[in-house]
């Protein structure tokens, strides 16, 4: 679904973040990208989102090399992703309004897709995510967890097949973080989404990543991958296996840092 082919990337005037980086993500897989701050995990996500481009090599999503954001890839960031001047409902249907604005041109919106009733499509997700009551409020008036659910509703309303998340729960309290984590897992299983979640929290990576990509201090050359197939099982985070994985991840991170 997502392929990195010998990707070189550096920010102007800075040293390389990725050098000859190869990495493959299969359809429907749930990945967590874990690493210390400054390791390039957000950069990796922006490369997948088509918001940044490698100096060398290619990033291919669904068979096409990216040269701009792809309409069916959803992106959820830590914060500040909502329009402060639009209500929750207006934020949730922003993706669909953009598609109507451009028409099904294949560049900004999926080719051949006819946008139906915008409000109904977005409202369905607001309902599902428990946001129907705050639909008329502004982002400044709701809690951080509700804001993040709004961002999720907005992305899902556009019917994505890839969901990219950059520290999506970092500014939330622990219970909210866990309930949103469960939600993402549920949604992924229902819709068969390919998900990539970038995080600096070891426990989050262990709970949400069936496969975990470990990044170290840049430049990153070849991917370090840890398989974690049991993460989907209920009660996984109470098992010894989970604890062992967390210990292993911590040791690896410390070694890398």
């Amino acid at each position, binding site marked *: 679904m997502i392929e990195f082919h010998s990707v070189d990337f550096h920010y102007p005037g800075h040293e390389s973040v990725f050098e000859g980086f190869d990495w493959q993500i299969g359809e429907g897989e749930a990945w967590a990208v874990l690493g210390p701050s400054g390791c390039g995990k957000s950069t990796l996500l922006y490369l997948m989102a088509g918001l940044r481009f490698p100096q060398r090599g290619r990033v291919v999503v669904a068979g096409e090399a990216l040269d701009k954001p792809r309409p069916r890839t959803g992106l959820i960031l830590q914060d500040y992703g909502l329009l402060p*001047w639009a209500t929750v409902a207006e934020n949730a249907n922003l993706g669909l309004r953009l598609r109507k604005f451009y028409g099904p041109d294949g560049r900004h919106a999926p080719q051949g897709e006819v946008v139906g009733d915008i409000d109904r499509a977005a409202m369905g997700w607001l309902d599902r995510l428990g946001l129907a009551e705050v639909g008329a409020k502004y982002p*400044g008036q709701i*809690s951080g967890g*509700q804001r993040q659910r709004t961002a999720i509703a907005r992305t899902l309303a*556009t019917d994505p097949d890839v969901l990219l998340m950059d520290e999506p729960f970092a500014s939330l309290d622990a219970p909210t973080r866990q309930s949103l984590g469960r939600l993402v897992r549920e949604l992924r299983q229902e819709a068969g989404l390919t998900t990539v979640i970038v995080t600096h929290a070891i426990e989050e990576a262990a709970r949400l990543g069936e496969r975990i990509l470990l990044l170290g201090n840049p430049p990153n050359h070849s991917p370090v991958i840890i398989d974690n197939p049991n993460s989907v099982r209920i009660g996984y985070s109470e098992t010894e296996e989970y604890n062992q994985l967390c210990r292993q991840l911590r040791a690896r991170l410390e070694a890398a840092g």
Partner: protein
Amino acid sequence: MSGRKVAAAALVIGIFWQVCAWLVDAAILPGPLVVLVTFLREAGGELGGHFLASFWRVLASMLISVALAAPAGLILGQSKRLNELLSPVIYLLYPIPKVVLVPVVLLFLGISDLSKIVIIFLILFFQILVLVRDQAAAIRPELLYSVRSLGAGRRGLFRFVYLPASIPAILTALRQSIGTAVAVLYIVELTATQRGLGYYIYFNGSTLFDYPKMYAGVLAMSLLGLGMYFAVDVLHRKVSPWQFQEETKSR
């Protein structure tokens, strides 16, 4: 602010004025009632005409400055390179008190309405330009990334992000500069015109010595400034309700 509080404040000012008028006890300070009666009598006649002339000048300046400054501010706010190129120029021009340019503009544009409109335009233009530019530049990259990931290109970002973000900045700039605009209006209407409240106030005060009429003119000018301030404020609340909502929950 409630209408009742504003009315109460107006009453207090009126009483203060009346007391001062009694203490001074001279023709140069008539009481508020005399002025009010004169104002109402004149409003339908001569004063109304002067009011409209002044109102038109401010309104035209406002419309022209929004039409030119808002797009310019948006462009500068979006383009780092262009902004770096032009910001020293704006930095130098912005703080110049535009009112000192009155004689220059009069020399070049003559004594028509145009010269008066241009002076007020210069004040409003820079105020709106700077605020809209800063607002557009302050839009968080995370927000732009999110909206781009939903499919927005340049046009989409403009329509769904930059434009709505700049409207409150335009209205804030207008509200902040209406006071200055009306003050400068008075000054430009002192010379080379026989229409407008500035002329009316000056002519009645210094030539005809008709003090109640002069104060009626001052009252009209105050109402002009106040009315425009209120109008912009109401418009702001209407188009940007999100800025006036209380935070019911903290982050």
